[in-house]
């Protein structure tokens, strides 16, 4: 059985039954799923979790899905890597990378969508909907295929054709919408009111949010059942950032880890940084902005969970940092060069922000720091296309020697000179 009890308003505390619903009727704030933690405490322990599947579903009891209803495409339990080479460059001895680039559709969205689609099926929806520029759309389309459900995926007309392939391959109803992002927002809001669909980031949003908690669970388990000292994670709507925190808090509440003293640092692209602006201004309100950045996967100007992300950063003793597009691209290259991971530009924002935090002393050399890489690079590889600067050589060993000798001559084995390869 699921231990989810009610939906509760994050602002005013008003409660609602577990049902498709987006915001509080009273204060118009986001809702979140609450659980019977007392009952959970009696049934969940470290060994029962560790004996579960090597996927996000090892935490099924902590999610709002009835056992047996999981729509599972193999998401989660992604690697937590000790990043020694990157750590040396940044002056951090205990830097870890949570590599969510390796999920089935190459982003963390698979976690959130897995729970939302499972719940959509429980609610009896036959059709799913979402509005996205790439990662979310691909994940919804893939889960719909696995669940045997219809999916309508709305994409702004300007999205690159390369991204559309990664969505269309799963055979959803792919709808490109003429007009601005605002127009797409407006249209999807109207569709959600008119059609009886499970709209992932509208009426399924509270459940969609819960999937991201598993990132917090996994990191704690992979660190040997402890919370990190510092987290650096990207924010678009703020949902991921707040749910990593919620995941850590829940584990502490269930006494699976000790008290959480994690400093939560939120990272945004400078061209779409309403949460960072509010943090720096000491404001309690997130003023929406119009995004202007190439980091499209986190370009949300009006973040639904922005206030709560801001509060998480403040109350945890963390902070908020932004990185320009150039800094983000440099971050992508630095990560690839030092750790062999090709992340999307949001990962570059995280690495660039981490670099600033390490340089300022906000995160310190001996602290256990976890940086979250939430999507893989190939889907948007055109933004770092300038890395392709090959060495050109005629097809003869003499010519090749002349080309490489200035930089790689010492690598040649003397006894190999004159030998032919097999």
């Amino acid at each position, binding site marked *: 059985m699921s231990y989810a009890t009610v939906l509760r308003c994050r602002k005013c505390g008003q409660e609602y039954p577990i049902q498709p619903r*987006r*915001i509080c009727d*009273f*204060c*118009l704030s*986001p809702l979140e799923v609450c659980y019977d933690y007392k009952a959970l405490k009696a049934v969940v322990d470290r060994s029962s979790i560790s004996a579960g599947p090597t996927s996000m579903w090892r935490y099924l009891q902590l999610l709002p899905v009835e056992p047996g209803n999981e729509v599972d495409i193999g998401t989660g339990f992604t690697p937590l890597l000790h990043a020694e080479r990157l750590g040396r460059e940044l002056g951090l001895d205990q830097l870890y990378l949570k590599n969510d680039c390796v999920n089935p559709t190459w982003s963390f*969205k698979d976690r959130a969508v897995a729970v939302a689609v499972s719940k959509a099926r429980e609610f009896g929806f036959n059709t799913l909907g*979402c*509005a*996205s*520029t*790439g*990662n*979310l759309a691909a994940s919804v389309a893939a889960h719909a295929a696995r669940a045997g459900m219809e999916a309508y995926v*709305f994409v*702004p007309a300007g999205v690159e054709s390369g991204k559309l392939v990664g969505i269309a391959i799963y055979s959803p109803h792919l709808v490109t919408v003429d007009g601005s*992002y605002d127009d*797409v*927002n*407006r249209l*999807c*809001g*109207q569709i959600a*009111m008119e059609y009886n669909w499970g709209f992932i*980031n*509208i009426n399924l*949003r509270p459940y969609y949010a819960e999937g991201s908690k598993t990132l917090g669970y996994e990191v704690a388990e992979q660190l040997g059942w402890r919370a990190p000292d510092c987290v650096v994670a990207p924010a*678009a*709507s703020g949902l991921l950032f707040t749910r990593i925190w919620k995941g850590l808090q829940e584990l502490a509440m269930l006494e699976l880890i000790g008290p959480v003293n994690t400093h939560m640092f939120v990272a945004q692209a400078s061209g779409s940084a309403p949460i960072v602006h509010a943090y720096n201004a000491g404001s309690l*309100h997130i*003023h*929406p902005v119009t995004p202007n950045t190439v980091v*499209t*996967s*986190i*370009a*949300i*100007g*009006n*973040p*639904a*969970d*922005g206030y709560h992300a801001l509060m998480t950063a403040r109350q945890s003793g963390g902070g908020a940092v932004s990185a320009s597009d150039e800094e983000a691209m440099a971050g992508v290259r630095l990560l690839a060069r030092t750790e062999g991971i090709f992340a999307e530009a*949001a990962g570059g924002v995280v690495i660039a922000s981490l670099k600033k935090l390490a340089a300022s002393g906000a995160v310190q050399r001996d602290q256990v720091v976890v940086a979250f890489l939430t*999507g893989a690079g190939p889907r948007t590889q055109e933004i770092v296309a300038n890395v392709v600067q090959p060495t050109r050589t005629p097809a003869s060993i003499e010519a090749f020697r002349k080309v490489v000798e200035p930089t790689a001559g010492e690598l040649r084995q003397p006894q190999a000179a004159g030998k032919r390869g097999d």
Partner: protein
Amino acid sequence: MAKKQVLFTFPRELIREPVIHNLSHTFKVITNIRRADVAEDRGWVMLELEGDMREIEAAMAWAKARGVRVDSVGGDLVEG
């Protein structure tokens, strides 16, 4: 009758104008303020608009044309 929850953000130059009053007198839309915070340099109001959807859309377009930033209360729907 449709309902739409929106966030109006007012720039400094509109702080002293009765924009919501004027909106409800220009369009057949009921305005219901749910939360707000207005300072001397900027202000925001979360409100519910109720009426025919075409009338609500027209009222929102009118507010935008006046210089009000209009956003959805639940945040942007288009995600990465």
